[in-house]
């Protein structure tokens, strides 16, 4: 047993860190550090830099542009991106539909889509959730009816992240409403967002931003060749997709970076004639967060290390711990940062691109803090709510 990285792993970490530091655009890194959005353009620029280096889809098979790194190297790479901070790749293409296509797609689909995903030539979004189906995904009701060499799709998806930028959407649709189990009549379609009949309506989220959307399908024609795998087998591909990649879920590196930022702010923010950081109780709260974070980092490494011995597509149920604790810590750090700025959480100052161009009220670090706290409430809801994750632990691990 040896918890330290090996010499080779340390060298790898240094190489990754130096490449990121030298290549991530300053404005992009600064936006992340300040808690602002990097925007579509920032993500596209950075993805192309990584893709040129051969690192935009490191976890893919080598023949499709992957690196062949092991789980620990993959983890180090993600961790360094988060620590830098540098954007992680858009998950919808890189983590979700990409692996589905190279595992279950036709040669034509692989040829057509995979390189454009790796280079973010195509911006993908995910059409799974529906208004009537939250955690109970399989009860979805968007219909696709076969008509010759097309499907005609009607229905509605919701919580569709960044659909406003998307070129493509991958959707679960119901192709057999009479299947004996609701999981059995579902197919997996790739749909061009420019197809007539698709309408995107923004949902304004709690912090005031535009991150998610409703997507309406009104007699949308989708060529049959854009179905992945067999008709009515879509649920299998969805399960594969959802179980595929959990190691990034805890976002340890990102939370570490946010703790660094929190300490900077607490040292700068005046209180009681000194700074917030001078308050022992405040420092204890930060320390308590760091303890849980260190514990989770090691738990994460234990899970990653175990992945080398697991078969692909069967995630360790212990990864539910990563989701629960990881999301709680992401929330805790935003909450403490808000406590640090205290009264200066109050002003509502939307980002420049949304029309705010006044000097900041109070300190220049304050504006994104309360929105960050509000927005981060979502992380214990999406991707399988923390309640669902506890069910998984109780059943899959404890056998209750």
């Amino acid at each position: 047993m040896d918890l330290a990285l090996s010499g080779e792993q340390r060298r790898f970490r240094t190489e990754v860190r130096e490449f990121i530091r030298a290549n991530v655009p300053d404005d992009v890194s600064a936006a992340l550090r300040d808690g602002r959005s990097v925007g579509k353009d920032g993500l596209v620029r950075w993805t192309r830099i990584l893709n040129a280096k051969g690192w935009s889809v490191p976890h893919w098979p080598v023949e499709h542009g992957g690196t062949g790194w092991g789980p620990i190297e993959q983890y180090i790479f993600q961790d360094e991106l988060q620590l830098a901070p540098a954007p992680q790749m858009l998950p919808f293409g890189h983590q979700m539909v990409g692996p589905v296509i190279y595992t279950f797609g036709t040669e034509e689909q692989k040829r057509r889509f995979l390189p454009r995903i790796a280079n973010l030539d195509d911006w993908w979004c995910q059409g799974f959730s529906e208004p009537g189906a939250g955690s109970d995904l399989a009860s979805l009701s968007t219909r696709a009816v076969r008509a010759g060499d097309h499907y005609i799709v009607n229905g509605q998806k919701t919580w569709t992240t960044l659909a406003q930028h998307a070129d493509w959407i991958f959707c679960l649709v119901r192709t057999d409403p009479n299947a004996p189990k609701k999981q059995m009549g579902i197919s997996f379609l790739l749909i061009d967002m420019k197809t007539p009949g698709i309408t995107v309506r923004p949902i304004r989220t709690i912090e005031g931003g535009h991150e998610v959307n409703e997507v309406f399908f009104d007699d949308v024609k989708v060529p049959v060749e854009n179905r992945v795998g067999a008709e009515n087998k879509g649920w299998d591909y969805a399960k594969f997709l959802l179980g595929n990649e959990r190691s990034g879920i805890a976002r340890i590196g990102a939370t570490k970076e946010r703790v660094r930022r929190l300490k900077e702010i607490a040292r700068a923010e005046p209180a009681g004639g000194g700074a917030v950081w001078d308050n022992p109780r405040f420092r204890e709260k930060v320390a308590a967060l760091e303890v849980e974070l260190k514990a989770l980092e090691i738990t994460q490494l234990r899970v990653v290390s175990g992945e080398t011995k697991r078969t692909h597509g069967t995630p360790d149920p212990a990864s539910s711990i990563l989701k629960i604790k990881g999301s709680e810590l992401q929330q805790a750090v935003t909450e403490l940062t808000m406590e640090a700025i205290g009264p200066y959480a109050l002003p509502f100052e939307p980002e420049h691109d949304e029309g705010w161009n006044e000097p900041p009220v109070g300190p220049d670090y304050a504006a994104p803090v309360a929105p960050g706290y509000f927005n981060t409430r979502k992380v214990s809801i999406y991707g399988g709510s923390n309640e669902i994750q506890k069910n998984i632990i109780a059943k899959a691990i404890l056998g209750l």
Partner: protein
Amino acid sequence: MDFDLSEEQTLIKDSVSKLLKGEYDFEKRERHRAAPLGFSEEIWQSFAELGLTALPFTEDDGGLGGGPVEMMIAMEAFGRALVVEPYLASVVLAGGALRHAASAEQRAEILPGVASGETRLALALFERQTRHDPALIAMRATKDGEGYRLDGEKSLVLHGDSAHGFVVAARMAGSPGDTGGLGLFHVPADTEGLGRRGYATQDGMRAAEVQFSSVRVTADDVLGDPEGAYPVILRVIDEAIAALCAEAVGSMERMVELTTAFLKERKQFGMPIGGFQALQHRAAEMYMALEQARSMMMFAAMSAEEPDAVARRAAISAAKVQIGRSGRFIGQSAVQLHGGVGVTMEYEIAHHFKRQTMIDLAFGDADHHLALLGESGGLEAA
């Protein structure tokens, strides 16, 4: 001991509730806050007609002579409906400073307008470096002939953008950290040298940064002892906290109500999610947090007029701790139990959550007041 409302109190409660029920559902509230001033002048007028703006002032000052319990009733109703009108700013904060510091002549001149709703004032108290401690005020007031000259900047002045006038705390003597040397001044908004920049706040209200450059006021504009305002400021803050506790409880009550309804209505895996025991228990914990907060709201109201400042401050801190913790737990739980719906601007729950958050941060959060309480030896020592 009697937890029932008097006939008059019941009347206040019923009339506010009726008004808000008709004119302040969530959709209308969103329209009110989209109005030019950030709130509805019509609603403000209705508040005045119901006597709400006159509530805490004596009859001599044009008011109704209500006490903390009447204030509690009004604020609790405002909390349920997420009212955005400048009631706390004008009636509780600035009005409170005038009630406690101003002479009979000054009150007779200024308060009837506040009580009738025609005049809306704001309290310009905190500055960039003060956080929640008025002793750290740096803004200077200098004797200038018969009057005074004010220089400095005030920050996060609630509803300062639309106020007709300000009550301003400034330092005549001493340096930041001293509790002595502070004065309160009444300054009409159109006084030369006064500049302001308004902005929206995270909870859907308004505030302003206010600059004072050689602003001149007369001797008649100083409210009480120009170097002895500190105890009055503390008293006004304590009254504001008691009022905020009631607003918070109204909002918590609404969140528990909305969440319970959602749990009954929302179906997943073929059953209402309210059938899941883990969610039932979370809802039960929300209810307990609400009732504990309600008890401390009453304690705050009961203590707001306590003459012993040390006992009063301990009681108010205790209430603020409970309200902050209950509000945070209920707010976070309500959002979580609503799932995706909980994190959009399109539903009421997120707005309650944000208002709770800002109430906790106002005048010092729960941990700040817990530290104060610990320093003073706790609740029983006080």
